[in-house]
């Protein structure tokens, strides 16, 4: 019996559940399943999982409502399964309290990266790793130092704030609105052009090829994600 973190899979497609069960089980996760929105809420309450993977298209109720219902009493990380072309749905899900999403169809490597990022976020609320490192990029939150391949990079205060926000949520998608609210303030949530310009400047300073970023990647129509180092 696997004794790793407990993951609740909510999907009405048995094939999807089978594949998720196999791949998550192979990584020593303890898997519980639900087929409906109602079942998801009940199982979530009964089993207290460490992570919920939720498909938005459920037979009995809207996946967005399931998120809202779970969020009434639980802070369990929720990873949403969605299909491309529904950027608005993804943003809606994130706004209602989902932690991240993954677009169908997806490979298992991508799934595991999302699962780990979401789990880590759920487990340590406050004790953030003081140093983020991926490839050549190194961010020291204590000393406020950023370096690429050992060379220190000078960032403007806003650029640093933006990078810090990405680092503290590394591996997770952050919506435009989230970044604007937390870096510029609630009055600026609609000013996405600020964000575009500053992301461009950050990439100029930390990416080797800003046109094909390795660290700060774009989630089209949704937001940005700071990539984590690929697990061993």
């Amino acid at each position, binding site marked *: 019996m696997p004794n790793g973190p407990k993951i609740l899979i909510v999907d009405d497609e048995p094939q999807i559940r089978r594949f998720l069960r196999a791949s998550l089980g192979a990584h020593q996760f303890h898997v519980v399943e639900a087929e409906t929105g109602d079942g998801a809420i009940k199982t979530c309450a009964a089993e207290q999982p460490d992570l919920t993977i939720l498909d938005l298209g459920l037979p009995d109720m809207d996946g967005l409502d399931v998120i809202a219902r779970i969020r009434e009493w639980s802070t369990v990380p929720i990873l949403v399964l969605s299909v491309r072309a529904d950027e608005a749905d993804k943003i809606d899900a994130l706004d209602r309290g989902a932690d991240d999403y993954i677009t169908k169809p997806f490979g298992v490597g991508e799934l595991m990266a999302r699962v780990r990022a979401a789990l880590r976020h759920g487990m340590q609320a406050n004790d953030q790793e003081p140093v983020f490192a991926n490839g050549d990029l190194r961010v020291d939150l204590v000393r406020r130092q950023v370096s690429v391949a050992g060379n220190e990079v000078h960032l403007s205060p806003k650029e640093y704030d933006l990078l810090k926000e990405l680092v503290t949520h590394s591996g997770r998608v952050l919506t435009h609105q989230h970044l604007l609210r937390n870096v510029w303030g609630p009055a600026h949530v609609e000013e996405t052009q600020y964000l575009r310009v500053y992301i461009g400047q950050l990439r100029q300073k930390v990416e080797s090829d800003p*046109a094909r970023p390795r660290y700060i990647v774009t989630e089209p129509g949704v937001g940005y994600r700071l990539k984590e180092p690929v697990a061993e």
Partner: protein
Amino acid sequence: MDDQSPGQPTAPTADNAQQTAPIVVAIRGTAASTQTVQGGQRLAVAAGHPWYVVHVTRPSLFRRATATRSDALTRTFALAERLGGRTAMLRGRNVARGLRRFAAREGATLIVVGQSRPGLCPLPRKTLAQKLRRGTGPVDVHVIAKQVGTEGGWREMRSHATRLASAFYPYLVGAAVAVGTTAFVQGLQHLFKDIEALGMPVVAGVVFVALRYGPGPGLYTTLLGVALSGVFLTPAGHRLTPDSIATLACLGAIGAGVSFYVGRIHRARAAGELREARLRALFRFGRDIGAAAGAQDVLRAIVEQIDDILGARTVVLLPTGPEGLLQVAYPSGAELSASDAEAAEWAYHFDDLSGRGTNTIEEATRLYHPMRGPEQPIGALGIGDVGQHGFHDPEYRWLLEALAGLAAIAIERADLSRRMADARVLAEADSLRAALLSSISHDLRTPLATIVGSASTLQSYGANLDAETRRDLLAAIREEAERLNRFIRNLLEMAKLEVGAVVPKRQWVALEEIIGAALERLGKLLHDADIRTEVAPEMPLAYVDFVQIEQVLVIMLENAIAYSPAGAPVTLSAVADPAASRFRISIADHGAGIAPQDLGHIFDKFYRAQYRDRKIAGTGLGLSICKGLIEAHGGTIRAESEGRNLGARFSIELPFETGETPARHGTMNAERA
């Protein structure tokens, strides 16, 4: 100044809900009307409302306007149009009622009128403004005060006096002629005693007056002439001889005969003028409804023109209701009572007049005239608000019949052209469906065959295969599944474009970022492709839909890679044209190229360049999707190629912004330095 409105010129601005309610400026068509128009224009512009200049003529087909009036009217209308107003001519007996009705139809809340002329009539009478205010409804009336002593005012007063006098003028002339000729003959009698009753000069005078001023003055002159001759020209001391009685009788008969004959000529001329006016109206009607494009435009033109020509309120009824019942097709919102509906059906089915003023369903509020096309009944015209006289006037009926005939032809024509367009769309949809089916059966089954085959091989013989073969089969399954995913994505995107559900969700985005996201998404496909990106430094942000433009780049890159030999470089370049506020992204490859005969079709749905040597997998949808998305952004896409095997270049060109949204990134670049 009793006309000066207590209402305020600023009244219309107070209510924001009526921000677009037009202002109606009513003019009399006199020289002073220009002042009214200028005042009305200032009022409308200050309040930001559209405005109409309206003139109401009393039933014009039955009366001619005076020349000066129509000159002034033409000048005033020209002025109004120059100042940005719209103009309208209404016909109706009651000016105030016509104006109120027009204001109600256009949703106007303010009518502007000029100050009434002082008038020569000493009795107090109701001004137009007072009549307008008496009517109910949420319409304010504003009076533009006249500038004292202007030329227009004086001329107008003078012409008013002249008009009054001109009615009596022919009779004055007639009296003068009768008295003059009688006096002349009497003078001759004094000179030459033996000359008896000389009626001829009087006859000449009567003929002159009758020809010049018409039968009324002619007859009047005759009677006066006969009376005067009888009194003054009888020689033997005021006693009538049989001889002079015969002369006087002759004189009376000739005068009456001439007057009667002249009367006929006058009536014939009036009828001719009326007929000419109606023909002109018919001609204009035919021309205007012929120029209308869509079905709704044709209906509107019909109703507006007939309203204008007949001074009526017209509705067009077409059999669009359940079970082919007639329904009001224009103007929308016109009501149809039960008896009206019945009368309209009667007219439609029995090809006959019905409703008000006829013997069939008289209680209806309108007169209904059938509209018949060359082959079948088309519908019915409902004519409302016409005075009782109209229904019995044969000329009126003739005009109505001609209008209904023209209207029927125009409606049938619009209907036919719509049906032809529908048929074309259907035919296109059919060929599209056929192409879609063949595309799905081929392009979706090929990868599925690979997946099923590889998976079943692994299932059955997995244990006997070496590790490398197993990896190969697994890789094939995954690659083909991803290909399937791309096909489905394209089909869905095409379906969305087809139903017009693609509306760009614009945001300020960096082009570099879109390009990066597209390359990221292509991921695996790129592993042995050599993609070179050349993005001009310091590209401004663009106001576009990130996801849609990324999609376009992904499709264009997929195409370039699919049609290139493995390892051949593909160049993606982006340049800005700041002068035109546009940018261009080009993707050039060194692959199969495009034959000249294919260049024109390459963006068509399901079109795929045919190559005997190789068959490229694809739905043939990608480029038409790109075209649809780029055009939704107000941009252009084009393909260039020197020919087969000489590579191809696809370029998209887009505006940085749509124009309605100001570029707001300028302030952001300050910190970049």
